[in-house]
């Protein structure tokens, strides 16, 4: 427990730093947010009033201090565009994002483990070659383009899945299983798009660690003692080989999150990503700050969980 406490304490300055950095970058960049959503015919005087109301006329450090003060009071401000509280706007989008990312994570792991295991065990086989080439291609494809190709092929050509959205209108009050199958049809393509990239990335690492572990002496000793290959693989190698995957999952979380934002945008999945990209276009500072903060918390939590899982898998790590 003291370990956990120390880590939690350590992430506070990290978060503060991230807030400061993103706040500075956004406020120092040229471009006036008030001009984006004001009628061009509004007088300069009114515009100055709006800027004053929003606190944009104060020195930047004062603005940051005020923002921090409100943050500690649990108030992230209001969206410039919709007028909603930032926390509310983000939290109402969060379940859809969580749903998409957790289901993709589970599927990625379910596919990666057997794929990497077989590929590493049968190193140099035809199967292994195919897996390696697939993972290289999966890493090189622009995910948003893959999403487009899936829409083109599965939705427009074959008409198997809807192109976008979460739930068709009219299904709101249907039986739960009808509703579920409708959501399932909507989530299929975004899920597939995210999985391709994730599996491609993780399989390479998993294959490598399986190969390394199978070369170790304790495996040879086990084999000499006459343990079955399945026992060697699943009982003696599997857990050890999972360790690098945990680290990489923690490390690659930022890109996984960033990538799924674009996917959400392409498929109009009503999650944080779509909100984020929309706020980028409308220069909605408070929402963007909230998004960056929220995503950073997710990433830091992910790293922390990865460390804890690491300790759990390998008790030698102190």
């Amino acid at each position, binding site marked *: 427990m003291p370990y956990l406490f120390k880590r939690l304490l350590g992430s506070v300055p990290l978060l503060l730093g991230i807030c400061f950095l993103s706040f500075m970058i956004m406020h120092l960049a040229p471009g006036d947010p008030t001009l984006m959503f004001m009628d061009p015919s509004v007088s300069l005087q009114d515009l100055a009033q709006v800027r004053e109301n929003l606190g944009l006329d104060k020195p930047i450090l004062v603005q940051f201090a005020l923002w921090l003060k409100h943050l500690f009071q649990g108030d992230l401000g209001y969206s410039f565009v919709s007028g909603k509280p930032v926390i509310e706007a983000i939290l109402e989008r969060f379940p859809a994002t969580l749903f998409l990312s957790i289901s993709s994570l589970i599927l990625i792991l379910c596919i990666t483990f057997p794929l990497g295991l077989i590929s590493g065990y049968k190193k140099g086989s035809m199967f292994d070659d195919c897996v390696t080439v697939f993972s290289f291609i999966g890493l090189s494809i*622009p995910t948003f383009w893959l999403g487009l190709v899936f829409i083109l092929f599965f939705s427009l050509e074959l008409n198997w899945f809807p192109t976008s959205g979460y739930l068709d209108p009219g299904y709101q009050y249907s039986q739960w299983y009808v509703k579920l199958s409708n959501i399932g049809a909507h989530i299929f393509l975004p899920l597939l798009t995210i999985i391709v990239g994730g599996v491609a990335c993780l399989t390479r690492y998993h294959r490598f660690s399986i190969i390394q572990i199978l070369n170790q002496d304790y495996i040879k000793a086990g084999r000499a003692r006459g343990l079955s290959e399945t026992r060697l693989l699943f009982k003696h190698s599997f857990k050890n080989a999972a360790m690098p995957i945990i680290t990489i999952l923690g490390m690659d979380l930022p890109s996984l999150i960033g990538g799924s934002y674009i996917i959400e945008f392409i498929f109009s999945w009503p999650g944080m990503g779509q909100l984020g990209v929309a706020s980028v276009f409308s220069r909605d500072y408070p929402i963007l700050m909230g998004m960056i903060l929220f995503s950073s918390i997710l990433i830091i939590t992910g790293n922390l969980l990865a460390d804890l899982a690491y300790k759990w898998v390998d008790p030698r790590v102190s």
Partner: protein
Amino acid sequence: MGILTLEKKALFSFLFLSGLALLAILFPIISSSDPNYFDPNLIGEPKSPSFAHLFGTDDLGRDILIRCIYGSRISLMVGFISVGISITIGTLVGVVSGYAGGVADEIIMRIVDMFMAIPTLFLILTIQVMMEPSITNVMVVIGLTSWMGVSRLVRAEVLSVKNRLFITAAKARGISLGPLLFKHILPHCLNPVIVAAMLGMGSAILVESVLSFLGLGVQPPHASWGNMLENSLSFLRQAPWMALIPGVLITLTVLALNFLGDGIRTYFDPRSKTSARH
């Protein structure tokens, strides 16, 4: 490895990339085709590939093949320059942090951690919206947000080199700090940097395509693979080749960079032959 050995993959990738680079550099010199030239007869509706236009034409009657070649100039340039920026920053930070050690190292590494915990793509999108979208901005922003990995690699190498005997010998000869860092330590740290440069170019090209696709990168009428994809969105059903061709080109280029990076890594460190990891 089976039929396609690592060496062969790296060789094919090298040939593909050099071909692409040659075409990108020489094409505008040897050919007078204008990427923005449009055939007045073809305007209004995209035409599928034919002998006259191998990759077809887009909605404005412009030849997609020629636009793709001009787009490759953008992608390769973005790859080179943004990686140049990130490698320079990353190497400097890594050398200083690794050599200084102690408190300075601790502080620098915490700052690196901080940069790494920010969702980079999101940050880049935000910055791009604030600034006038242009090719220069795209390159600078990608470079400034992707140096952290390199700095960690270099720092680790410096740590392993700085206590070796030849460094102690150089110090005993009274060498000053600059030459010590850049003539004696740095050359021993460059192998992983070269590999990181290859992989980094791949991801820079991917990021550029996302930005241009969202209309935040290279602006029309300039051709880039990303903004050709953006343009293709309105004709997805009618003219799928407009979406497929630039995407395939991006994939092939990034794939070649990844294969080449992997090949170079194996060359430097044959033990990693089984690995294909970064």
